[in-house]
């Protein structure tokens, strides 16, 4: 299970970073989203992967680690705010300079 999880994370990060390095804003935002998925899963997994161990007192015999869960929960919401901010920043810069290239100008060559 650990190896499977790790490999999946690796593929997600690879895809995310590749998109992050593209020249247009939209793929960059998609890359950011993918990376934040991976990072959230990674942080979450620091409390170890357990099935049937919900952290609700009295509902199961063993409990997963609730702390990474609480951290990731807010991270997901803040991640949305960050994505929104990036997208709107991109829209604004499109409105100002008329291109969605990350450098704010169309490539010259």
């Amino acid at each position, binding site marked *: *299970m*650990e*190896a*499977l999880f790790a*490999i999946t*994370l*690796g*593929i*997600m*990060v*690879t*895809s995310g*970073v590749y998109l992050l*390095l*593209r020249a*247009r804003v*939209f*793929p960059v*935002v*998609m890359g950011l989203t*993918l990376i934040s998925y991976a990072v*959230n899963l*990674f942080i*979450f*997994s*620091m409390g*170890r992967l357990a*099935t049937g*161990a*919900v*952290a*609700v*007192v009295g*509902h199961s015999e063993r*409990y*997963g680690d*609730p*702390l990474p*869960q*609480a951290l*990731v*929960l*807010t991270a*997901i*919401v*803040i*991640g*949305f*705010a*960050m994505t*929104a*901010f990036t*997208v*709107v920043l991109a*829209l604004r810069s*499109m*409105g100002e300079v008329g291109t*969605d290239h*990350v*450098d704010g100008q169309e490539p010259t060559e």
Partner: protein
Amino acid sequence: MALALIIALPFLGIVLPLWLERYGRSACAFGAGLAPLAALVLLLWQRERVFAGEVIVVRQSWLPELGLDLSLRLDGLGFLFGLLILGIGLLVILYARYYLSKQEPTGRFYGYFLLFMGAMLGVVLSENLLLMLMFWELTSLSSFLLIGFWGYRTDARQGARMALTVTGGGGLALLAGILLVGHIVGSFELSAVLAAGDTIRNHALYPLALILVLLGVFTKSAQFPFHFWLPQAMAAPTPVSAFLHSATMVKAGVFLLARLYPALSGSEWWFYLVSLTGLTTLLIGAFMALFQHDLKGLLAYSTISHLGLITLLFGLDSHLGAVAAIFHIINHATFKASLFMAAGIIDHETGTRDMRRVNGMWKYMPHTAALAMVASLAMAGVPLLNGFLSKEMFFAETLEQHLLGSFYWTIPVAATLAGVFSVAYSLRFIHDVFFNGDPIDLPKFPPHEPARYMKIPVEILVLLCLLVGMLPGYTVAPLLAAAVSASLVGNVPEYSLAIWHGFSLPLLMSVVALVGGILIYSLRKFLFRWYEGLPAIDSLLTFDQVIKGVILTSGRLNRLLENGSLQRYLALMLGSVLLTVVVALVPLSELGGSVPRSPVDAYTVLGMAILAVTSALTVVFHRRRIVALMILSGAGLMVALAFARFSAPDLALTQLSVEMVTMILLVLALYFMPDRTPAESSSLRGTRDLVLAGGCGTLVALLAYAVLTRPYDSIASFFLENSLPGGGGTNVVNVILVDFRGFDTLGEISVLAIAAVGIFGLLHGLRLPHPTFDYFGRPWSGDRHPLILAVVSRALLPLALVVSAFIFLRGHNLPGGGFIAGLITAVALILQYVSLGVPWSQERLPFSYHGMAGAGVMIAGLTGLGSWAFGYPFLTSSFGHFHLPLAGEFELATAMLFDLGVFLTVVGATLMILANIGHVSKGEAGQEVL
């Protein structure tokens, strides 16, 4: 207390001259002198304790985490330097009163002067090395201000800049050196450092620490090859040269040698570095001094040479050498300060310092001439004057060392040679200026004696030269003894201050120096002609070229790295991250840990496979944006399922609802953007990016695997045990959010609200063109609000709100809570906007989303503050069980109120973001995107 006051007084005294300036120069100088005078009295007050060998240390804790304390130390060495700084400082203040003209800003001059004086006192009276360093830098800064006092002159500006660059750079090296010493010793307190000499010398970092400290020393004390700044600093007003560049600041370097002598000396490194630098400086300074035509230039190079002599004495690494060095510090300060003052008087009265024109002054100012001649003879090392005594000790010491092996004789020979030149340039100062025919073409003619009081400081200093020279035992002995004992931490060798030691080799060397000097001076015409023929090295020009070269190189490097392409920066950054992490992970011997691997089941494999494939497909289709987005949302849903699978229902719910909001956001944004990405990456760049991305992915995968297979210990049990008794809820994740870590959550919802407000601001006034055709030229559908969606969404709204309320209420005990409920409400509301349009929805939803987000943060914050009213710390929660007829028993917790704040913030912020992007389209009125 007295110690702190001695340092503080000059700083406090800065206001006096500034205030008294309006009452004339005398009042101004008087005001400037008050504080140093009081400090001098305070210092002398401690005399008996210091002479008795006591080390007075006061400590005041300041930043103990950094090892930086306000601790001060007064011992013999500090006392000696304090005396020089305050005593000569007071004389220079009196002198400067007559030196500066009426038009000059006297108050500002004295202000800088006192600033320097305080800083210098700080250097010599600090017990903490970091504190000392702070004052050390302050001396460099105030010296910059003083050299550049005549800022309208180019040479003053250039000289000031050069001095600051060289001494400031040295200060940086010294900082590093002292940090290393502090690291080795474990303390920055001098008492600890001085006691740890053996630890320091045996440490592997000793050579590095020593070299760094010596860089600071050599730059400050103008040692070769950093000596060039001192002649350029002569652009300063002469009182400044007399005080900073002969008596005090340049002595800070050699002071540090004396101070750290027990800690750093006693090794081959020390011997070779310090003595050879000192020897070279001694020779070059003495040689160059003879060929200067500028009076102050001669004195500057002579100062360099004498500083070299002191450094050499410390480098000889014998206790007697240190005694001679400290003795020479005192003597040099007295005769050189008086010589500078005399040079200033001559400059002041004749208008020039060129020795080829200033001749025959004996006729015009016999009094000044007599004083300058005595001081010059002291500089030459003529018997019965103080310079003779320390020079004699110096010659004797050069004969004692055997460290150069069979070449041991080179040091005494070089010392004698330097002595020869020193006699020659001293003679030149006397003969050229006061005799040698008549003055030639002076700007001010005829010159005459200066104001009576301008000569008093010179007279006092010359008198000291004579007294020390003739009666050393009755004058300087106790002071020297105290300083030496402090510098050597008690290991004082036997030494004698007698004038007559019998016929000895050192005496012979003195005689050779005197005779040789006279000989050289008589041959000066030939020597000057020969010197003119030498290729000239303009240190200012060279320095400028070096600085220009540095700027050019850094500019080139900058352009190479910073070419304006964000992609490139990002690639560089990711590459560096990869490199750093790989280097850090190399020591990891085994990838997998000891924890038994958990079994794999088919559902998880399928889920993970879908997650991996959707991620990869997003990349494959990334140029067709809408397709890629749909695939990406699939990945998001799989993440939610993964959370659900691995026992995190709260996360699954949150991820699910956030996924929806994110997709709405991205689709909205995509509306304004081209829906295709042009192919523009070269294959080279594509390969580079793929390698980088693959590297990052591999690293994350390895890291995750390595961590997951290792045992771990968590603080989870605390939360699990205390959730119910302490927070009144069974859903531990929610209790952590609203109770244990409530302060974090408060911060996070504040960030959310701020981001929303920021987005609102960014969208304000933004109008984007309204696209009418898609990529293939097909027109957008004219059916703006499809009927079925409109009907369904209206019916769904109340249902969704009920679900949301349910999720919210049960959140404390079961998966749910403010975050998730907020997101569900937001999704339900945004659906109305999507299906029915902005105007329709706004009419029926008359909430201000700003107000809602703000109210949310307020409620959460006030809930926290509420606990203050009951005398508990911020955000202490309380809960109780209540019984209502019909409804039965239920539980109320203040955390619920906090969660309500979270809920409102999430709803307000999300809608503020989405609803505002909805109407940024340009075009006819009413044409909204939503």
